[in-house]
């Protein structure tokens, strides 16, 4: 049997999903289930004067209507102390879409009818739907009891870098916007709660079932044993399903009151204003550099729009942006600071990359601007500033942020093997000379991000028990194996990847290994799936548990074969004695023997069933180099991606097919951020992108073919050498695209454009530049 790690095996999870036999939360049918529908605020900022539920209560099928006042004692969701969000708006609404009341009826159509019949009387308050409005002189604090809408401010360096900036031969101020995006998992939020005398069971769309279990148990004053949280098949998460949503608590509470299962199925329109949005950062940057383009000092002032209520995960994201603001570069002084501002908009939380794409976009735009300022090739500026492979692991100035093994220049070299840079530049020059030809732009992104999240001290800050992950591996007496993991996948292919790891470790056929996940009743403990921690942290726990089983199996085999443990070899599912290959026992025989105490040494602990935890000693740092080649139609401003080439270093690749899928998906989201997506609000706080009609997701016609390759620099920080890569594409792509768009118009004096680079925006920039140039 060859090695399974590194093999492009097709996924175990696919047949069920491809034949309609997957189990998503809304597919679960419990007898007697009733349906919950929200009454949501249509105003962005208002005092609730009254809620009239009488008419709704009388409608057919309605079991009840509840407001905040009817749910006295129901706890608020966790956040920064003093900023906890109640499950239903208490006296005020903070954003359009905030739930004000809930209706439960026997049928979801009837519940929706009844929700329509609830009459809420509001007194409108001044709306501050942008950071500018929320921080304007005399702005009303949105959260009662706070002095202003700036809820958190922090400087993450000892200096503000003013002296270093002043001393640098060149100094450049750059304003960048990382616009608000929506995660839009294809499955909106769904939950089903069933509170019985023995405790509460809740099935929900979540990336972090154990964390949710812990939260709910604490909020209801139950023991963790009494709450079972199940995340079955989950239709995408992208970080947004790592947040705690009020509906989890509400369905549970109403199930307790009604003594029936209560289901909530979010509509897409609700999802667009209710699920946390991502990004939403402004960066005011100053960079100091010398004549050769060496970066000397960087000051980054981050302003985060955290929406109407600070999300417990979202509030930590500017910290991650700050930590990663140096990118792949050796910059002597980096001075990041941030402030988080509450506005009358949807709360902001994690979205694929969560804080790092913002940093990567910032520093990669800065590098291109420095190059343009000096008239030096942008690749040359990158090369002159790269942290070198020999300097790894590289301790940044931020405590605990230590880049692991990587080869930043090597990734760029490998990228250029795929891209004939000189030919592209020549073609670009030709195109510029021919006014009928579309413009050509070449953009690069050399990036480093964070994967393999933990360790515990970092993760505690986000409210998690720890940053480790857990795994249990059990060898059955027939020689098959079951893995239980604390990660909870939503498309990442853990069933397949973890089976590959165990197949190699235990020499058990891949087909005979199954995975159990996402259910707190059957999986011992876990943290969850986010921050590219599936393989580096979850996979490492699986590797360790499998190793413990292997070690024990070797002890049994040695006993059976009357040989020394050090002489036992395991290959093709068979233990044999070194030098005597015909003497052997197979895995199933060992597994059976594991349950025969009379045939084992005295006191031998029965069974082959081992649990292990992996606590990462450090984050891992996936890196790489991406190139985007765009064509811009001069008449319409439409950007066409002609080529997208990605070279990624995620360390050891477990399954190249799945790795390719992760890169593609991430790059797609990054391209979409660069060109298409933006959540908008009108001045009065009304969402401009509240449906998929207004918020354009890219279709197959909008996205290019991707070319991918890997550089493999294993990390020494986990036993697999894997760094993770789920977020790399989304982290790398936006600036590759935007750098290309700016590059296409650079000869006209264009130096910047904000995302998304829609045809209209590009056309305007092009028109203005052409006018100025002529």
């Amino acid at each position: 049997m060859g090695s399974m790690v590194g093999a492009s095996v097709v996924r175990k999870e696919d047949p069920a999903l491809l034949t309609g036999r997957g189990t998503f939360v809304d597919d679960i049918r419990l007898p007697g289930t009733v349906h919950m529908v929200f009454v949501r605020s249509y105003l962005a900022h208002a005092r609730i004067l009254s809620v009239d539920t009488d008419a709704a209560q009388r409608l057919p099928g309605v079991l009840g209507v509840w407001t905040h006042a009817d749910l006295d004692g129901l706890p608020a969701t966790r956040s920064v102390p003093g900023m906890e969000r109640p499950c239903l708006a208490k006296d005020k609404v903070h954003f359009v879409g905030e739930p004000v009341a809930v209706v439960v009826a026997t049928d979801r159509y009837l519940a929706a009818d009844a929700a329509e019949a609830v009459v809420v009387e509001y007194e409108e308050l001044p709306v501050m739907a942008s950071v500018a409005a929320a921080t304007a002189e005399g702005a009303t604090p949105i959260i009662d009891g706070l002095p202003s809408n700036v809820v958190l401010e922090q400087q993450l360096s000892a200096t503000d870098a003013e002296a270093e900036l002043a001393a640098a031969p060149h100094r450049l101020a750059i304003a960048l916007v990382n616009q608000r995006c929506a995660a839009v998992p294809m499955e909106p939020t769904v939950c089903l709660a069933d509170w019985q005398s023995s405790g509460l069971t809740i099935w929900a769309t979540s990336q972090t079932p154990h964390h949710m279990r812990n939260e709910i148990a604490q909020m209801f004053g139950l023991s963790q044993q009494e709450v079972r949280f199940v995340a079955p098949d989950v239709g995408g998460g992208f970080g947004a399903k790592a947040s705690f949503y009020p509906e989890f608590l509400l369905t549970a509470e109403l199930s307790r009151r009604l003594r029936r299962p209560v289901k909530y199925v979010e509509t897409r329109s609700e999802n667009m204003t209710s699920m946390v949005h991502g990004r939403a950062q402004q960066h005011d940057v100053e960079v100091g550099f010398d004549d050769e383009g060496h970066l000397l000092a960087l000051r980054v002032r981050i302003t985060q729009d955290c929406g109407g209520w600070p999300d417990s995960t979202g509030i930590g994201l500017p910290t991650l942006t700050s930590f990663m603001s140096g990118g792949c570069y050796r910059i002597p002084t980096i001075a990041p600071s941030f402030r988080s501002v509450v506005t009358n908009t949807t709360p902001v939380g994690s979205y694929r990359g969560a804080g790092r794409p913002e940093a990567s976009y910032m520093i990669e735009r800065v590098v291109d601007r420095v190059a343009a300022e000096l008239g030096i090739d942008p690749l040359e500026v990158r090369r002159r500033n790269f942290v070198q492979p020999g300097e790894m692991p590289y301790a940044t100035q931020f405590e605990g942020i230590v880049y692991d093994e990587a080869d930043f220049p090597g990734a760029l070299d490998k990228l250029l093997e795929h891209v004939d840079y000189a030919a592209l530049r020549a073609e670009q020059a030709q195109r510029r000379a021919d006014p009928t030809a579309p413009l050509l732009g070449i953009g690069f992104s050399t990036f480093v991000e964070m994967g393999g999240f933990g360790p515990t001290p970092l993760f505690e800050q986000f409210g998690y028990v720890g940053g480790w992950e857990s795994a249990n591996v059990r060898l059955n007496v027939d020689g098959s194996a079951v893995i239980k993991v604390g990660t909870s996948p939503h498309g990442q292919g853990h069933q397949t990847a973890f089976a590959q790891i165990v197949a190699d470790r235990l020499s058990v056929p891949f087909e005979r290994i199954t995975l159990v996940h996402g259910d707190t009743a059957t999986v011992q403990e876990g943290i969850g799936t986010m921050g590219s921690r599936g393989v580096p942290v979850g996979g490492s726990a699986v590797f360790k548990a499998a190793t413990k089983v292997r070690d024990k199996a070797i002890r049994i085999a040695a006993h059976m074969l009357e040989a020394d443990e050090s002489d036992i070899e395991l290959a093709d599912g068979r233990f044999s004695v070194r030098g005597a290959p015909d003497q052997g026992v197979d895995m199933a025989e060992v597994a059976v023997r594991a349950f025969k105490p009379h045939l084992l040494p005295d006191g031998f602990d029965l069974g082959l069933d081992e649990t292990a935890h992996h606590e990462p000693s450090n984050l891992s740092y996936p890196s790489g180099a991406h190139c985007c080649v765009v064509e811009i139609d001069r008449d319409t401003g439409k950007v066409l991606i002609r080529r997208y080439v990605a070279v990624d270093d995620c360390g050891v690749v477990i399954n190249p097919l799945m790795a390719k899928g992760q890169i593609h998906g991430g790059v797609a989201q990054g391209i979409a951020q660069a060109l298409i997506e933006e959540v908008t609000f009108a001045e009065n706080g009304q969402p401009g992108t509240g449906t998929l009609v207004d918020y354009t997701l890219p279709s197959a016609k909008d996205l290019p073919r991707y070319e991918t390759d890997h550089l493999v620099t294993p990390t020494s920080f986990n036993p697999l050498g894997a760094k993770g890569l789920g977020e790399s594409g989304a982290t790398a792509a936006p600036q590759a695209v935007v750098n290309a768009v700016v590059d296409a118009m650079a000869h006209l004096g264009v130096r910047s454009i904000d995302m998304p680079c829609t045809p209209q925006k590009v056309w305007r920039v092009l028109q203005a530049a052409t006018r100025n140039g002529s």
Partner: protein
Amino acid sequence: MSHHKVRITVNGTAGEDEVEARQLLVHYLRETRALTGTHVGCDTSNCGACTVLLDGRTVKSCTVLTVAADGGDVLTIEGLDEQGEMSPVQQGFQACHGLQCGYCTPGMVLSATGLLLEQPDPDDDAIRTGIEGNLCRCTGYDMIVDSVRWAAAHGGAGTAATAHAAHAEGKH
């Protein structure tokens, strides 16, 4: 709200049900017929997760009233495989890693199946046009395009879909 009796055949099985006039076909399939493979991803007919074949043509079943499908013949994801063997499109999606979370997948597979019924050998551009109405947030589409091309080379729409389309043709 008025109720109506409908006769709808789903995956070859006839059913007679009384439904509310406003009920959407996707809810009929999921709730009344307990076929939960057809998913709901939006409420504006943009995402395509609810795509099924109705009388030989792909429809977004959240845009069709159940009463409008009266007398119709529906093929859902549950009816595509034949005696436990996945259709070429389903096999293509597995072989080419054309899915990740799997939520958009039933609709995407049905759209691809409908495309192959009309165009047995589409090029990449035709495939992208054919699945344009189905959104996937995981894959970036490249490997979905590969999956459909794989299916075109390995039997196309498949026997269940071809039989469904032929039956619909007979009715027209």
